[in-house]
Every structure is written in structure tokens, then in C-alpha cells.
């Protein structure tokens, strides 16, 4: 804070402003110009810098203003941003940034503005410079231009090519005077196919079977194997994982207070199932953006579609952000960024604060799309101290839904009964209150239900007088403020609550008709914020003549929370006796102890209690409805205002909801006024007309199969991205993709059956070190999941169960409860299922994933980094997982045969997919010695897991 007096003083100065023009200019020259020069122009002049777009070296500069709009409103200091800034009264706008001006100088500038800001400096004009690419230029850029079906080029070696894909590749190889590499050996090919299509190594038997078939007819054998693998449920696990990288899939929010996403697995399963079922990719897009808005033929479809929208919800949201509007816009930004990179290869997020510096993406475009997500509900509410996502109820199929509905109908009826019973009780209680309205009798705190804090246990500030004058007190009397020292006295009750939850809070005071204050301010700080309640102490306390209810509030366990009574501004005696906290659902217990003398009330209380018990029981016994992380259209649908420089509170012009202008070919789809526009957005993205969507996806697929893309900046197809090595091939693939019904399996099939993909690994030619011609296969590192899944399959421990929740102990969490993080922090990774099911916690990851470049799961990652670091080596040499699995693998090896060499061959074939070379055999024999123990065999297996041929795929 800055003491108010300073500001008042400054304003007082300004009141004497002279109003004559000459006098004004004189004032400017003598007082203002030197001040501006000394204090402002270093950062706000053409000669030095123009920070925030604001120039103060010219009249036009401040008239036009900077990025936040006009800086000075002549004659209106209070409406001038310039004055707000120098006053330091707005924390977000303080200038000069380093040090507040002395009060006299502020007063001068205020006076100047008050005078109408006379300023003779009027030469020149101030224009904003355009930075990004114009729309027109942008539309000519390759990725924004419409996809064209290119002519297939002619090639010299017509026999080499198996299809058009090969012709595009070969034409460039031939043009460069190079040669394609020979075909990969069947042994290399079968490993490549298994790892690339299902992410698992082939067993020795599978290798043999393929080699045998390939010896007869290689193309036929390959085609057969490819079709088998594409039909395997493990295809979805491998390819779903690729998409999960794009979708920054995780099962907790990470960051500040990481929260467990207990339903996120439904999205993971949705992705795997969609790939296994070869759901057309355009539908896959629509479901993830607007699944909740699409018609669903069956409950199963509805479940899938709603679960799909978790794509928008499972980002690394900072639920703890205290400014919930800011949080809302942060969520929107994350959604746009993920959607932009994931589907369109665009860094839309850059335009949150300003027009994109390089790409034709304007801030208007950004807020046009932001309006769609601002009209979409992603957060459950905007009031919780720690916010949370929406857990959408899912429909069930057939009889289950009938049972659920029946159960829910029963629940609703019971809840209605309960409501009625409570109303009865209240009525009856009022009657009781009137009975006990006479001067009451003291009661001990222990005789009252709930948690009682007596005045004696409160934190007392200022002089409060103890009294027993009014007899209905609790404990040992009450206190009052002597009706003196207003504003100096407070009493604070700090409860120590045994568990988080909602509590009814009641204040006991000593009522008298005369002399009491009618406006006692009581402040309740609870988990969802702060509330002020004003109490009229000339009124009889409505509950038992002792208490008044302050309302029901949520509190954290032992968390920040208090009730503060102040005598500030009160107009009479303020009395405070005690505070009562009654846990929700327990409210009737509070009445329990009371007058059996009133049978009407007692009966009502009994009925309420019974209904509450019944309700609890019914909830527990009945079927529970599944929920999914999801979004929905908000009740309020509206366009949003531009946020100047991305600052939530600095609002500019309102922009109608819409899409990325540069990628629009025809009219933008109209967004109905009463809907968010997500459906139209999804349609626009999932359209064959969209120049980005199909290009980006076929390039991703290419990257996942070749290890490197046709465009290597897979998530960036903007002007700062790489231009494609084979632009026609991208368009060819994109066209084919749409022609074949957006089928991912067909796209994959076409690529892996190409001769290009089936080439052998070779040393890059000096003229093409990066292999941009794709004239041979690239040797590729096994990724983190392949390493883990292979180790587990070699050891025989891999469990191939499909789908489902895989976090032990996951359940509903209270975001505001401090124990909410425990599941993640205390988690022990122990299961041996495939890595795609390994809990994907953002703050506590599986160590193997961390070490082997699984990558950051906080943002879209179309291609993982490949690093070579000592911690990876240390992991393979010393980590208990590797040591234990090597031992299990050794047990299998020992069981496989009694013969040492046969055992070695088995170990090598299972681990590396090939028999040992003569040298390897010799080295291993020497290592094992005459009578190797299980432990020695375990060491041998562990060593194989660390070899180059294990870690690399040819």
C-alpha cells in the first residue's frame, strides 16, 4: 500500500490549475518539458526507445497512446492512464518502473493534465509499424495455400518405385544424382515393423515366421504382416501414444498444487480405441473439440464423445491462481496453444499479447478464437480457492442407464422430501425460539453440538469488557466493546477443524433491544474467499435466542480460515459471545439436544435425521455414475474483448468469435449466437479445405515412421518453421489421406509398404548429411516406452492387459484439501503393464521416462528430443528396475535350455532380435565361465540391455 494521504495531497495541488493557453504553454515549457525529458523520454521517445508503443516526445504520441490506448485525457487526470501510472495506484501500471516520482513532480504532471495538457510539440505523425506477414502475403505461403493434388513425377528407374510415394522420393534422389539404398534385410524389416506399428519387439518365433514367408514372397509376406499388426489392439497403444504426446496427456495437473485427474484415463482409452477402430481422423478431431455437442447415436457414442473433450481440459492448469479471471484466460490460452500446435502447426499463443511477429496471425484472430473458449466451460466454478475441472456425468448403456435413472429418481425424491422436512423443522424451531426468547439461561460450551469457540479462546484486539448481564450466554459470559474506540477493536475466532468440508457458522451474541449496534460487521474467511455479514444485535438471535447463522462455508482442514468481528463503523454496543461450526449434514444434530418439550419440533428433527440417513445409505448402495473430464458450452455465450498486451484487466475492442483468417478460404462458418462455436471451429479444422490440418497430420505420421519429418518443425508450419523438403509429396499424401476417408491405418499402411520406408540403414552421403532425400533409412533410438516394454517382454513380466484406470488409490479429491497431492507424491510405480498405461503424473514421473527423453508432458510434443547423457547410462547400469528384470530374464534363459551356447543364442535373439556374432559369443562365454550362476546370467542380460544394438533400431 501507499498511504492514502500522499495521493490526497497531490490531488489538492492540482485544484489550483490555471486555465489560460499562454500560461499553459509557459507551464509546459518551464515545468513539464524538463520533467518529461528527465523522467520519461529515455523509454518513450523516438530517439531512444518506444516502450509499450507509447511516445511522450510528441503531442500525437500521448494522444494516440501506446498499446493500452490513449495515455492522457486532457483535463481529466483521473481518467488518464499516464497519471494512473505515475501515481502508482494500480499495481499493474506503475511508471517510472524503478522508482515512484517525488510527490511534487506527480503534482506538476497532474496539474498539467488538469490544464488540458497544453503541448506545443506537434511535428510528424505517429504510426504503428506492421510487423507480421500481411494476410495477402500469408496466403501465398506454402502451408496456408490450398492443398493441390500434384502430378506424379516421372522417374528413370521405374522398377524401383512401388507406388506414387516412391516416385516422389525417387525423382528427387535421381535429380540429385544419388541412389536409393538397398532394401532392408528381412530381419531388420520385421523388427522395424513390430516396433513402429505396435511398439513391441517380435519374438524369435515371429522373426522366424516372417523370414520364412519372406523367402518365398517378400512383398506378400510383408503385406500380410502389416495387416496383422494394424489389426492388433497393440497398434492403438503405440499410435495412441503418439497422439497423447500431441495432446500433452497427463493424469495430474502438475505445477503448483498438482491435482490428480482421476478420469483422464478415459481420454487415453478413447484415443487408443479410436486408433484401433480407425475412426476417421476428421471425426477424431471433431470429437476432441466438440464431442459433447455432436449427436450421439448410442450411449456408448455419447460416452466416447464426451470423454474426448478432455483434450481441452487436461492441460497443466494452475488451479491455484488467485485471480480467477486471469486463470480463465490462462486456460483459454493453453487450449488455443495446444489446439493450434496439435492440429494446425501454428503458434497461436504468440498472438495473445500482440499480432504475431512473423506469421499472419493477428491479435484479433486470437481473441476471435478465445471467444469460443470463453463461451466454453472448462472450470467447475470461478470461486474456489483452488479451482477444479468439470467431471461430466456419463450416460450408461441399456439396463445400466435404466438402473442409474431409477436410482437418481429415488435420490431426487428423497432430496425433495428432505428439503420439505427441513422447512418444517425451521418452522418448528422458530416457534421454539419464541419460547426461549425470554432472558435465557447460561449454557456450557460442551452441551452444544458442533465445534464451539468461546470468546475466551478468541484473539482479542483492543479493550473488550467482560459481562454476564444478558443471561443467555455460553460458557463464562460474553464481551462488549463499551461502545467506544470504534475501529480499534476486533475479535478473531480461528477454528481448528478436524476435516475439510462445508460448515454452518453461527455467532452467539448478547441481545438487548436498546443500545446495541444494528450493523456489526462479521468477516468470514473461508476456502472460497471472504464474506462480510452484518448483524443487527437489537434483534433476538434467531436460533435458541443465542445464535445467528452467518451462512454455510467451505473450510480446509486446519487451513486458513477465520471469523473476524470488528466494531469499526458500528452504531452501538457490539457484543460477542461464542462461535459455533456445524459440519454440513450434521445440522440436525445441533437441534438434537434441544427441548424435547416441543414435540412438533422434535418430530420434525427426527424426520430430517432419518431422511438424511436414508439419503446417505441410498447414495452408498446405489449404482454410481461414471464421470469424465470434459468441457461444455457455458451458460453465457459471448464474444470477448481483446486483452491489451495479454493483460487480463486491460481490455480493448470486442471481437466477434471466429477462426484463423489466413487459413480461411471461403466464408467463415457462421457461429450461432447461443452456442460457443466449438462445433463450427471443429468443422473448420476438420475440413479438407483447411490447408493446414491434413498437411500437419500426414507430416506427423511420416515423422513417427521415419524418425524425421518432411517438415522437421512438426509443430510449426508457420513462417518460422522449416519449409518442406518435398512439398508435392506432402500435398500428395494429404490428398490421398482425404480420398481414403481420413483413415490413419490406410495412411500408415501405404507408407510402410513403400519401398522408401523399407530401405536399409546406410551411412549418409556427404552431400546429404541430414538425409533430406530419404535415400536410406535412419537408424533410430528406442524411445522410453520401447525400452521399458522390451525389457519387460524379454523378462517375461510384461502384462498385456488393455485399457482402464491404472492408478492405485485414485479417487475423487477435494482440490482444496492438503491431502489432495498424496496419491501422486506417495506413488510407487510397480506395475508391469505397457508404458502407455503408466500413471502420467506431471510432478512425479517414472524415472525411466525422465531419463530417456519421454519429454515434457506439459505441452504438445510432436517429436521427442533425443539426448545422450550419462544419467541414461547410470540408469541402465545401476537402477533396480533393470537389475531385477535382468534377473527375471536370466531365469527364463536358464530354463530355455541346458546348453550354454543355446542359452546365449536365446538371450540374444529375445533381446536384440538376432543371434550373437562369433566374437560376441566368445566374449560372453568368457564372461560366463564354466559354471555361471543365475546372478552372472543376470549380469549378462543387464549388459545386453545396455548395448548399442538394444538401444538402436536399424
Amino acid at each position: 500500500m501507499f498511504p492514502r494521504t500522499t495521493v490526497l495531497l497531490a490531488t489538492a495541488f492540482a485544484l489550483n490549475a490555471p486555465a489560460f493557453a499562454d500560461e499553459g504553454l509557459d507551464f509546459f515549457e518551464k515545468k513539464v518539458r524538463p520533467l518529461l525529458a528527465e523522467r520519461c523520454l529515455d523509454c518513450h521517445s523516438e530517439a531512444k526507445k518506444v516502450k509499450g508503443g507509447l511516445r511522450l516526445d510528441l503531442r500525437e504520441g500521448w494522444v494516440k497512446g501506446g498499446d493500452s490506448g490513449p495515455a492522457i485525457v486532457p483535463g481529466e487526470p483521473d481518467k488518464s492512464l499516464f497519471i494512473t501510472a505515475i501515481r502508482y495506484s494500480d499495481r499493474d501500471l506503475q511508471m517510472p518502473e524503478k522508482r515512484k516520482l517525488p510527490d511534487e513532480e506527480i503534482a506538476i504532471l497532474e496539474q498539467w493534465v488538469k490544464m488540458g495538457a497544453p503541448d506545443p510539440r506537434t511535428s510528424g505523425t505517429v504510426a504503428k509499424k506492421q510487423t507480421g506477414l500481411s494476410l495477402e502475403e500469408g496466403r501465398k505461403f506454402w502451408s496456408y495455400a490450398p492443398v493441390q493434388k500434384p502430378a506424379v513425377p516421372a522417374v528413370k528407374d521405374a522398377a524401383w518405385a512401388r507406388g506414387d510415394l516412391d516416385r516422389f522420393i525417387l525423382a528427387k534422389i535421381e535429380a540429385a544424382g544419388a541412389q536409393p539404398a538397398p532394401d532392408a534385410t528381412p530381419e531388420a524389416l520385421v523388427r522395424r515393423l513390430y516396433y513402429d506399428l505396435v511398439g513391441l519387439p517380435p519374438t524369435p518365433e515371429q522373426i522366424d515366421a516372417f523370414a520364412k514367408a519372406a523367402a518365398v514372397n517378400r512383398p506378400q509376406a510383408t503385406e500380410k504382416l502389416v495387416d496383422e499388426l494394424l489389426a492388433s489392439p497393440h497398434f492403438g497403444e503405440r499410435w495412441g501414444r503418439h497422439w497423447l504426446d500431441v495432446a500433452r496427456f497427463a493424469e495430474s495437473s502438475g505445477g503448483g498444487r498438482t491435482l490428480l485427474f482421476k478420469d483422464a484415463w478415459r481420454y487415453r482409452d478413447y484415443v487408443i480405441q479410436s486408433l484401433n477402430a480407425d475412426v476417421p481422423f476428421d471425426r477424431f478431431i471433431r470429437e476432441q473439440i466438440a464431442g459433447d455437442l455432436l449427436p450421439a447415436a448410442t450411449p456408448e457414442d455419447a460416452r466416447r464423445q464426451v470423454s474426448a473433450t478432455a483434450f481441452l481440459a487436461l492441460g497443466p492448469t494452475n488451479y491455484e491462481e488467485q485471480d480467477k479471471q486471469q486463470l480463465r484466460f490462462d486456460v483459454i490460452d493453453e487450449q488455443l496453444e495446444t489446439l493450434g500446435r496439435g492440429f494446425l502447426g501454428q503458434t497461436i499463443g504468440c498472438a495473445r499479447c500482440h499480432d504475431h511477429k512473423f506469421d499472419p496471425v493477428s491479435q484479433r484472430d486470437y481473441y476471435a478464437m478465445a471467444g469460443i473458449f470463453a463461451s466454453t466451460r472448462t472450470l467447475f466454478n470461478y470461486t474456489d480457492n483452488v479451482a477444479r475441472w468439470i467431471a461430466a456425468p456419463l450416460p450408461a448403456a441399456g439396463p445400466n442407464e435404466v438402473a442409474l435413472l431409477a436410482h437418481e429418481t429415488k435420490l431426487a425424491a428423497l432430496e425433495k422430501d428432505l428439503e420439505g422436512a427441513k422447512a418444517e423443522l425451521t418452522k418448528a424451531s422458530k416457534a421454539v425460539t419464541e419460547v426461549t426468547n425470554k432472558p435465557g439461561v447460561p449454557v456450557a460450551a460442551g452441551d452444544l453440538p458442533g465445534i464451539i469457540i468461546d470468546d475466551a479462546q478468541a484473539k482479542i484486539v483492543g479493550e473488550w469488557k467482560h459481562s454476564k448481564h444478558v443471561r443467555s450466554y455460553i460458557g463464562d459470559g460474553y464481551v462488549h466493546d463499551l461502545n467506544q474506540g470504534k475501529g480499534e477493536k476486533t475479535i478473531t475466532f480461528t477454528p481448528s477443524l478436524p476435516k475439510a468440508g462445508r460448515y454452518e457458522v453461527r455467532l452467539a451474541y448478547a441481545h438487548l433491544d436498546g443500545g446495541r449496534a444494528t450493523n456489526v460487521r462479521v468477516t468470514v474467511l473461508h476456502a472460497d474467499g471472504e464474506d462480510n455479514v452484518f448483524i443487527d444485535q437489537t434483534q433476538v438471535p434467531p436460533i435458541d435466542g443465542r445464535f445467528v447463522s452467518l451462512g454455510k462455508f467451505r473450510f480446509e482442514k486446519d487451513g486458513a480460515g477465520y471469523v473476524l468481528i470488528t466494531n469499526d463503523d458500528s452504531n452501538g454496543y457490539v457484543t460477542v459471545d461464542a462461535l459455533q461450526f456445524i459440519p454440513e449434514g450434521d445440522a440436525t444434530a445441533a437441534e438434537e439436544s434441544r427441548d424435547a418439550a416441543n414435540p412438533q419440533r422434535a418430530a420434525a428433527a427426527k424426520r430430517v435425521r432419518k431422511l438424511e440417513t436414508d439419503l446417505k445409505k441410498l447414495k452408498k448402495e446405489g449404482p454410481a455414475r461414471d464421470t469424465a473430464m470434459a468441457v461444455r458450452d457455458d451458460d453465457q455465450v459471448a464474444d470477448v474483448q481483446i486483452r491489451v498486451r495479454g493483460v487480463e484487466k486491460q481490455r480493448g475492442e470486442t471481437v466477434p468469435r471466429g477462426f484463423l483468417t489466413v487459413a480461411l478460404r471461403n466464408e467463415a462458418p457462421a457461429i450461432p449466437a447461443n452456442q460457443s462455436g466449438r462445433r463450427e471451429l471443429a468443422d473448420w479444422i476438420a475440413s479438407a479445405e483447411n490447408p493446414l490440418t491434413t498437411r500437419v497430420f500426414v507430416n506427423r505420421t511420416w515423422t513417427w515412421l521415419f524418425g524425421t519429418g518432411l517438415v522437421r518443425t512438426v509443430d510449426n508450419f508457420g513462417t518460422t518453421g522449416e519449409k518442406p523438403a518435398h512439398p508435392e509429396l506432402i500435398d500428395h499424401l494429404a490428398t490421398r489421406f482425404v480420398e481414403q476417408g481420413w483413415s490413419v491405418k490406410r495412411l500408415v499402411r501405404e507408407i510402410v509398404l513403400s519401398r522408401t520406408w523399407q530401405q536399409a540403414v546406410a551411412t549418409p552421403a556427404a552431400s546429404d548429411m541430414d538425409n533430406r532425400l530419404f535415400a536410406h533409412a535412419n537408424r533410430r533410438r528406442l524411445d522410453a516406452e520401447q525400452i521399458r516394454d522390451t525389457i519387460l517382454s524379454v523378462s517375461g513380466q510384461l502384462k498385456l492387459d488393455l485399457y482402464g484406470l491404472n492408478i492405485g488409490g485414485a479417487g475423487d479429491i477435494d482440490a482444496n484439501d492438503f491431502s489432495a497431492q498424496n496419491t501422486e507424491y506417495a506413488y510407487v510405480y510397480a506395475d508391469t503393464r505397457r508404458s502407455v498405461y503408466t500413471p502420467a503424473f506431471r510432478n512425479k514421473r517414472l524415472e525411466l521416462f525422465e531419463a530417456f527423453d519421454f519429454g515434457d508432458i506439459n505441452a504438445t510434443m510432436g517429436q521427442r528430443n533425443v539426448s545422450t547423457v550419462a544419467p541414461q547410462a547410470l540408469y541402465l547400469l545401476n537402477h533396480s528396475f533393470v537389475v531385477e528384470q535382468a534377473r527375471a530374464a536370466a531365469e527364463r534363459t536358464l530354463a530355455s535350455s541346458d546348453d550354454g551356447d543355446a542359452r546365449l543364442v536365446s538371450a540374444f535373439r529375445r533381446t536384440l532380435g538376432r543371434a550373437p556374432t562369433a566374437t560376441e559369443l566368445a566374449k560372453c562365454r568368457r564372461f560366463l565361465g564354466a559354471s555361471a550362476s543365475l546372478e552372472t546370467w543376470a549380469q549378462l542380460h543387464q549388459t545386453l540391455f545396455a548395448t548399442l544394438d538394444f538401444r538402436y533400431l536399424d
Partner: protein
Amino acid sequence: MNCSLHSRRSALQTLSCGFGALALAGITAQQQARAALPANPLAPRAPHFKPRAKRVIFLFMSGGVSHVDSFDHKPRLTADDGKMMDFADLRSLAKTGKSPQQRVMKPLWNFSQHGQSGAWASDLFPEMAQHMDDLCLIRSMHTEGIAHGPATLFLHTGTTTFIRPSMGAWVSYGLGTENENLPAFVSLSPALGNGGPRNYGNAFLPAIYQGTAMGRAGVPATEATIRNLKSPRSPEEAKRQFDLLRELNAEQLRAKPGESELEAVVNSYELAWRMQGAAPEVLDINGESPETLALYGIGEKETDNFGRQCLLARRMAESGVRFIQVNYADNSNNPAWDQHSNLKKHGEHAKAVDKPVAGLLADLKQRGLLDDTIVWWGGEFGRTPYAERNGTGRDHNPAGFSVWVAGGGFKRGVTYGETDEFGHHAVVDKVHMHDLHATILHALGLDHEKLTYRYAGRDFRLTDVYGHIVSDLFT
């Protein structure tokens, strides 16, 4: 953001990627990293200009130390103790747009002046107070984020929300390491919460720049070590096994000659093998003299744990680790220094860190290490000058707080900047967290505007488009 009037234009000038540069931009981050980095990406790299310091030890006080009870002397708090007054409470404003009156609360510790410099410090940290002549005390810090998570992330990564590399990762990227047997960036006993791994993460920088966590909050410092450093086998067995790996890899490499990446993998095993030998020695404090142990408070119940962490920090600094973070933290959502109530508890925490920190300063000084080591002490924010819940504690205060830096070319015995008369908002010579980042990078010879990494088509910096170097702090 507080720096909302900054222009992104100045940042753009440093991006050097106008259209002329687009042709060069066509490579992935990964390939760029490969191309731009030498064979060993952690090899020492020349800074942008002559550095004042070579390394950083950051003593992170998680939860927010109360500056008005420690280093920011505000007599008005005592004079107006108990009065209800208007303060712009940031949390209330963020949540409701309004701020109710607050009760001024006097410091619980007495302030006095210390040393030749006469710098003020309270008796909360009596041992550190003895070193006031060594410290460069900044009392005009301000930062972003009202809750711990956002503010802690901001302290470490320069953003409350976005996924960005941590400062230690940036420094490792900029300077490499002086000892390839050790990581370049170590975080000792980091917490899982309040940002967790993101506080030492590499985000989009190559993984090699990620901080290496040693131990974690809640686990005794005696157990803090580099993961997987110890072989589960006997030394002889381990050697025999490693020799087999060498032989098999040599054989497999022979079949695929000329692949530099495969050679790099082979080298990574050799490096790991050397680390297994060298690193434990650095991490073993048994050879330290009883005097040294006593200096850090090792062996005394209250100070043993943090003392060990500080001593490890010195040993790693000596051995060439570039960025060492020592965490006084726990895994809760109300981390160590977070005294919303019962401010007296600050005393317990102070007891735990005071002697070890003073010991570290004295030890670095006597070994001549303080000259090229920056010691940075502070938390993610400070605390309010008024009582939270009108009771016995203070709420978070990102608008004004104190940190100190020592050594590494920073002025000694200097107090810089001021908060208002209550210690609530920084008002004179304000230093934003971005500015502190820029200034520390500058001391290391790194220009915060040039230390960039191209990702998703843009050059990123630790300081985004902000940050001023506070050159007044340098000798």
C-alpha cells in the same frame, strides 16, 4: 504483469530473426541443438563478456520469509501496531477486487544495525547479521504470483503459468560445466510441490540441461545423492560387467562405423563409469575437519540437516558445479516459511538455516571461493506487514520483499532499494524478479537478452521480454 508498459520491441531487436533469417530457421530444436552444441553439450562455453562470477549457490527459502521481521526495518509497524488501516491486499484484490482494512502487526524480532556498514537486520538471523558487511541486501524486490505455486515457478522459471526452462538450466546451457564428472546443475532436496520438477526442469531446452535432483524435501540430507550412482554389485563384479559392455559395444560399433551418435552413447557409458568413481568422493563430507563441520552446525540437532546441504553445496562449488540450489523446503502446500499464523515459528526455521548459511559464507570466504561464487538467499515472496486473520501470522506479499546476494562481484555491505513505510510495496529502486535474474546472469557474463533458445519458431529467454540489469549492485 507488473511490467506491462515494457515493449516487446526491444526484445525483437535481439531476436535477429526477421525475414532474412527465415531461411536459417528451418531446423528442429533438436537438430539446432545438435548443430549449435559441441560434441559434449556440457563442455564449458565462453560467456558473452568477462564474467564476475563463475557459479551460483541459491539458498531457496520456500514459503516466503517475512522481510519485515528480518531485513527490512520499518519502525512504523511498531508505532502503529494493532491499528486497522487501509492496505491494498493483493490476495483480496485478486479474488474480490476489494481490500478490507488490515491490522498492522509489529515485527516479533528486534532490529539493530550491524558491522561497518551499519546495515539493519533483526535478531531473527543473528548469525547472518554478523555478515552484513559481506551482503548486498536488496529490499525492493517484487515479483509475480500471490500463491506459492505460481510465485515459486516465477522465481525459478520467470513465469507463473507457461512451461519454461528453469534458471539453472539456462545457466548450464549458457556456460556448460567445469567438471564433466558432475552435473552442471544440482538441486539439493527439492520439493515435489509448488512447481516440483518444473523448478529445475529444462522444458524445451535439451534434456542435458535439466537440473539433477539430489535427495528430496523430507528426506534427510544424509541420503541426498545422485540417482543410480551406486552399483548394486561389488566393485569387482561391476568392473567385470562393465568390461563386457565395453567389449560388446566395441564389437557392435565396428559393424556400424562412422556413426557419431553411437560413439556418443559409448562415451556416455564411459562418463557414467567415471562419475561412479568421482562423484561419491565429492558428496562425501567425512573428510571435512571438525572445525568445518562445526562451522555449518553439523552435529547440532537443529542445524545438522541444512548444514549438510550447505556444506555439500560448497564441495560441489569447489568441484566446478555451475548452479547449485539448496532448498529449505517441504512437500506441503504451506511450505516451511509460510506462517499464516503463529509467526513465532519463523524462529524455528531461522534457527535451522541461520548458522549453516553464515557458515557457508565464512567458509567460502576463507577459501577464496566467495570472489567468484554468487550466493543468493531468498524466497518466492515476502510477507504482509499486517496480520492475516487479524491474528498471529502474515499472508504472502509479492509486492515488496528482501533478498540478499553475496560474493561474485556484488557490492558488499550495501543495502539497495526501499519499500514503503510499512514494508508493503517496493517503491524506491524497485527490483523485479526478472531484474534479479538479468542481474545474476550478467554477473555470470551472460547477456539475458542474448541467452536465447529457438523453440516453436521463437527465441525464448529466461526474462521473456523484461528484465533490467541493476548495475548499481556491482562493484
